[in-house]
């Protein structure tokens, strides 16, 4: 009903017509660009993943699912998937816990919050490359922490995870957490500030302790923040590339390869564009399987209201 009214009014009034069309007109170029450069190239990559492309895209050789079969038979891809599992579980879990903890502590109306908050948030302003290089030097036994401890007289101190194949992936987790937990803190802090004071006061009157209030009321209210934090962190984990390149470049050996590193190395370093494309598609499926349920729940929630 409302729509037909507007249409009638628009037909009568050219200015209203313009107003009706202007947003669409202005949005059209960016919409077209995104359609082409994001979704168009996703389709391009999908097509590429079924070809035997080596150095350049080559659509004359269709190989079906061969690239995917080779991908999942490749030891480096398996290593990359295992690393992704270790990395994303620890990264998401520790970042959320640490971020929530910091936010709760900051939320105690302490003095100097304005100074402390940006200090925690600051690492997020750095690029992962900077974080990676700094942590690489810090963790390097020859020049970093271990060396300094030795110079201070603690000769038996040893921390050489970054040089050990089995432990190196955990050093990347440490650096990533350092980078992101401040950001998660900011998200939780915003959430905490949004909690209705009346609810807390009511609980206090009912005699609930502070711990109980947090455990039973405030933290459950943070559910949407947890969800947002999870989605942000999960996609950062899946596309983790620059941090790994800066810290270990996949080493020692192939111990810290991640799917994104695999994609880059195969497509551009090894002239295996077909296989690189198939790994990119797998990564995209992983991201979609996180984002789509999230969007669905968000949009679904909107409808209910």
């Amino acid at each position, binding site marked *: 009903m409302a729509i037909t009214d507007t249409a009638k009014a628009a037909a009568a009034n050219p200015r209203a017509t313009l107003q009706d069309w202007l947003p669409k007109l202005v949005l059209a*170029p*960016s919409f077209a*660009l995104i359609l082409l450069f994001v979704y168009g190239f996703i389709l391009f990559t999908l097509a590429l993943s079924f070809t035997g492309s*080596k*150095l*350049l*895209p080559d659509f004359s050789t269709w190989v079906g699912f061969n690239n995917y079969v*080779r991908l999942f*038979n*490749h*030891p*480096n891809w398996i290593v990359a998937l295992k690393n992704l599992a270790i990395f994303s579980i620890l990264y998401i879990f520790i970042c959320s816990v640490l971020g929530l903890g910091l936010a709760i502590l900051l939320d105690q109306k302490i003095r100097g919050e304005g100074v402390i908050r940006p200090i925690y948030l600051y690492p997020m302003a750095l690029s992962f490359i900077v974080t990676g290089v700094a942590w*690489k030097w810090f963790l*390097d*036994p*020859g020049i970093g922490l271990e060396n300094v401890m030795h110079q201070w007289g603690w000769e038996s101190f040893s921390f*050489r995870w*970054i*040089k050990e*194949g089995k432990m190196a992936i955990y050093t990347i987790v440490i650096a990533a957490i350092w980078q992101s937990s401040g950001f998660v803190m900011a998200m939780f802090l915003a959430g905490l500030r949004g909690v209705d004071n009346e609810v807390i006061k009511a609980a206090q009157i009912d005699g609930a302790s502070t711990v109980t209030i947090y455990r039973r009321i405030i933290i459950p209210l943070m559910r949407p923040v947890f969800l947002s934090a999870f989605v942000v962190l999960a996609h950062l984990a899946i596309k983790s590339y620059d941090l790994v390149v800066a810290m*270990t*470049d996949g*080493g*020692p*050996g*192939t*111990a810290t390869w991640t799917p994104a590193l695999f994609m880059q*190395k195969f497509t*551009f*370093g*090894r*002239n*295996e564009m077909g296989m690189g494309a198939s790994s990119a598609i797998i990564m995209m499926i992983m991201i979609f399987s996180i984002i789509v349920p999230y969007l669905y729940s968000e949009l679904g929630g909107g409808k209910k209201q």
Partner: protein
Amino acid sequence: MLRKLLIGTMLSGAMTAGFAAPSFADEVEVLHWWTSGGEAAALDVLKKKLESQGVTWKDMPVAGGGGEAAMTALRARVTAGDPPTAVQALGFDITDWAKQGVVGDLTDIATKEGWDNVIPAALQQFSKYDGKWIAAPVNVHSTNWIWINKKALDAAGGKAPESWDELVVVLDKMKANGISPIGHGGQAWQDATIFDAVVLSLGTDFYKQSMIDLDPAALNSDKMVEAFDRMSKLREYVDADFSGRDWNLASAMVIEGKAGMQFMGDWAKGEFLKAGQKPGTDFVCIRFPGTQGAVTFNSDQFMMFKVGDAEKKAQDLMASDIESPEFQSAFNVVKGSAPARTDVPDTAFDDCGKKAIADLAEADKGGKLFGSMAHGHANPAAVKNAMYDVITRHFNGDLNSKDAAAALADAVAAAKG
């Protein structure tokens, strides 16, 4: 915000397009990654020479990743249908590009100047495709070198090792003297550089069968297990912090006497010379024990792309200049490599350079000049990197020698498929 970004991108795109002036007939556009001091100085020799002949040099340097970044840039240019005139390229990359049907043809100038007779056949394998010359080789780096700190060697008996057992004795003595015997950086290509030399030391036929012919029987053989055992042995002489170290830092360890020797291609010599050291008195260059007379090489070449008839003249002139003996000598003295043609006088070279030229000629004559696996001259990139994976995993202790040999054969088979 997004829109601003988009507009910005479009504007900068338009500007780049505007600046990409139509190329003039007497101009060569050269894509390369020789940007560091010594390399840039060496390339400047060619640039000056061309400019004196009235050809404008349009520089397109893309540094990083041993040429990987340059190859990525090249992909974009070729896909857009606007390739540069000449591109620095290595080994199988040249063949891969030739297969795409985008490279030029230098056969006329090559025939006129008789390149076939003066450039080693092993190099021609990469400079030619389908019987046509497509690239002009600039240099030959050999990779089976050992660079030894003279003082450390004197302290360890003073005699340069000539066999595997003698090498182990020297390494043990160096260890006893309290230095790290081998200066090495734990990056896949550096591990593979040592592996190249170790495989070659077990026989030139074995090297050819396993690294070039990719014979599964040779890849998963007792001899290959022995090669991996030797790698494990060498691993014992590397310091604990080696992982991820750049090759020039490993060279610096040898220069400063913290490490005894480095297994590295002849570009390492540049680091020694830059530090003011003299071959023979401060450092010693020898071939990896058991590989004297054979050479594993990699060769920088300028691959020529298809250009219009007007630009062809400048392209031919550039190719001709690259192969002129004066340039070959001037460039390679600075770069530390050996000339790509065997008839260049060695008078301007230092002792290690003279040895490199003599060894190269000997290996070429004896049919013992092989492309280096570690540097993409023995097999294509996919196979090379599959080998890297196994070698570096073994060197880092993830695989034992027997499993490594089996994994090597498997990885090569998978990469070929």
